[in-house]
């Protein structure tokens, strides 16, 4: 019988079922400081160990400072949380890339970077953007702390099988249009809840043409339309990315792995519960204007005239925008380039290419927060740090940073930030902060111009 890639992988990981709920085996578990302490406490209360420590990897990312990481963390609560992660990992024997370690970074950046993330796996983490890892053809999704505890205790979680949706995008992207625009476009079409209950497979020639890092950007934001995860069938782009990485299979194991990975695709006649198709040529540089990621428009469009929806009006009031308004020329005060969505080396290269020889607007502050120590090191090796410094951009140390404003990297109340992150919720980047989501090039162009510009005009 024909099957989708999702169903094949799900079936291959079901240990047992109870009343229609599956016991799903997890191949890889990532943990971080914010959603794990209570889970470790649960193990301690029960007096049990981590069932499979070798399948668990920790990093400190959500709550870490992004300057002076070599100094003690100032905020006592953040410090205690980061220390708790170290203590728990030491006590239970879990491998950890602690703050300052040369392989530390945002969990969804370091997993792929180290070659831990591989096709065909089931992957969980106490963070909703775990969907990022689906770009490798794996089932990857975010879980709550109770499920972190379950995974630590049994390497399994209880889950109902989601429905499947295929989103096919064929055609070529226009210049100035990036993976971030693809996903913001899809979310704007399907809404912030349109994917709830589904697991998505992204397909089509426009997806195939993307680099591995760009594919991660697409899968990363699957959760922003409510989908637990998104995946892309692996191909030579995937294999080339993994080859030679620290935790990638070697020698004979490598060729066996590639033989197996090459079989991981949906059958020709597989039936999805839902199918959506979009034309790549219709996608333009995108910006959000509201307080959820579904409230996005093409840069040359106007904020829609939605009538009599209280939540929509509330959202525009928060942003201080009005219906029918264009965002082109809108002044911004802050630029944030970072997060698990857009803080990989390719993102930094796109920014550097444009910024080289230019200066940021004097009215704008710019934070560039690399996704990992390795991304930071690579940027320096390529001389990108010099380009950023010359332009007046600040290249900081890795972490989740102003994506969620847990550390001190916050946007002041009432001010606008064009951000390459994934959520424009009220107060997400700090109480009262107004977030406009966009691609790295849109963010870089706004930084230089002091206002939002249509990057297609730059070519």
């Amino acid at each position, binding site marked *: 019988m024909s099957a989708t890639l999702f169903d094949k992988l799900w079936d291959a990981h079901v240990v047992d079922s109870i009343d229609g709920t599956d*016991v799903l085996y997890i191949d890889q578990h990532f943990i971080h400081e*914010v959603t794990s302490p209570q889970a470790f406490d649960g193990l301690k209360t029960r007096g049990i160990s981590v069932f499979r420590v070798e399948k668990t990897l920790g990093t400190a990312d959500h709550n870490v400072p992004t300057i002076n990481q070599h100094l003690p963390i100032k905020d006592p609560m953040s410090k205690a949380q980061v220390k708790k992660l170290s203590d728990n990992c030491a006590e239970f024997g879990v491998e950890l890339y602690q703050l300052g370690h040369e392989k530390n970074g945002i969990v969804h950046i370091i997993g792929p970077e180290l070659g831990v993330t591989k096709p065909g796996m089931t992957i969980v983490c106490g963070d909703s953007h*775990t969907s990022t890892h689906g770009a490798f053809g794996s089932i990857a999704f975010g879980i709550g702390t109770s499920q972190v505890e379950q995974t630590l*205790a*049994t390497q399994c979680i209880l889950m109902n099988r989601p429905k499947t949706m295929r989103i096919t995008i064929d055609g070529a992207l226009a210049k100035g249009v990036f993976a971030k625009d693809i996903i913001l476009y899809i979310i704007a079409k399907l809404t*912030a809840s349109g994917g*709830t209950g589904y697991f998505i497979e992204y397909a089509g020639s426009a997806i195939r043409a993307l680099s591995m890092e760009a594919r991660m950007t697409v899968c990363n934001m699957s959760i922003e339309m409510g989908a637990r995860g998104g995946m892309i069938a692996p191909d030579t782009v995937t294999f080339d990315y993994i080859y030679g990485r620290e935790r990638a299979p070697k020698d004979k194991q490598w060729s066996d792995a590639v033989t197996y990975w090459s079989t991981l695709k949906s059958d020709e006649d597989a039936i999805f519960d839902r199918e959506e198709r979009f034309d790549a040529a219709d996608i333009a540089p995108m910006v959000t204007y509201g307080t959820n990621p579904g409230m996005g428009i093409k840069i040359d469009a106007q904020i829609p005239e939605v009538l009599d929806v*209280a939540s929509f009006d509330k959202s525009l009031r928060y942003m201080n925008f009005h219906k029918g308004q264009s965002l082109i020329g809108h002044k911004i005060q802050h630029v944030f380039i970072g997060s698990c969505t857009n803080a990989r080396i390719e993102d930094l290269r796109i920014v550097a290419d444009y910024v080289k020889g230019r200066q940021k607007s004097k009215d704008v502050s710019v934070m560039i927060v690399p996704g990992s120590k390795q991304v930071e090191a690579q940027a320096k090796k390529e001389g990108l740090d010099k380009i950023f410094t010359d332009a007046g951009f600040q290249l900081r140390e890795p972490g989740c940073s102003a994506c969620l404003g847990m550390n001190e990297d916050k946007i002041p109340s009432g001010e606008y930030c064009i951000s390459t992150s994934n959520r424009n919720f009220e107060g997400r980047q700090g*109480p009262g902060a107004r977030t406009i989501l966009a691609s790295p090039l849109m963010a870089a162009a706004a930084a230089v111009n002091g206002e939002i510009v249509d990057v297609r005009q730059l070519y």
Partner: protein
Amino acid sequence: MKKLTTIYSTAVPLPIEDVDTDQIIPARFLKALTRKGFGNNLFRDWRYYGDGNEVKDFVLNNDMYSGEILVAGNNFGCGSSREHAAWSLDDYGFRVVVSSFFADIFKANALNNGLLPIQLSKEELQKVFCAIEKNPKAEFAIDLEAQTFTIKDSESIFSFDIGSYKKMCLLKGYDDIDYLLSQRDKIEAFEKQQVIY
């Protein structure tokens, strides 16, 4: 986990759509190391001004409304996987959240903490909001065994869905982890036949 069988209570209305987890509990309050105390910061930035003063017209600050049931707009709990959202609602004293649609991860987190998410149709949800608007002290009855939600004033009875496994967990106060730990033999057997690259 606490058992949940029947609830009789008044309700707190929050007729806003797409209430995300950053509104339920902002990220800056996720630094705690235990599950307790999050209720104080539930809906923090809607509930308090930056200076700590109460926002008078926010529903949690309105003495007219109280109870163990939160009634919210469509797509409640979207956003992050933080279980702190469920913990903060529970810690504040809610046992039930009613909406016309819930985000997946929030729903799973709620069920894992004995907080019952009840999904009604949009029309039914509107009737619940109307009942509270007419009478802020309107009472509601929830019977988990029968899977019913009743508006006492009008005797309107709505039924709701819940998976049979999760229903059993709530009725008996069982955690998933208890069940999973009992399955370790099967898990080990599964691992033996798995090919890993």
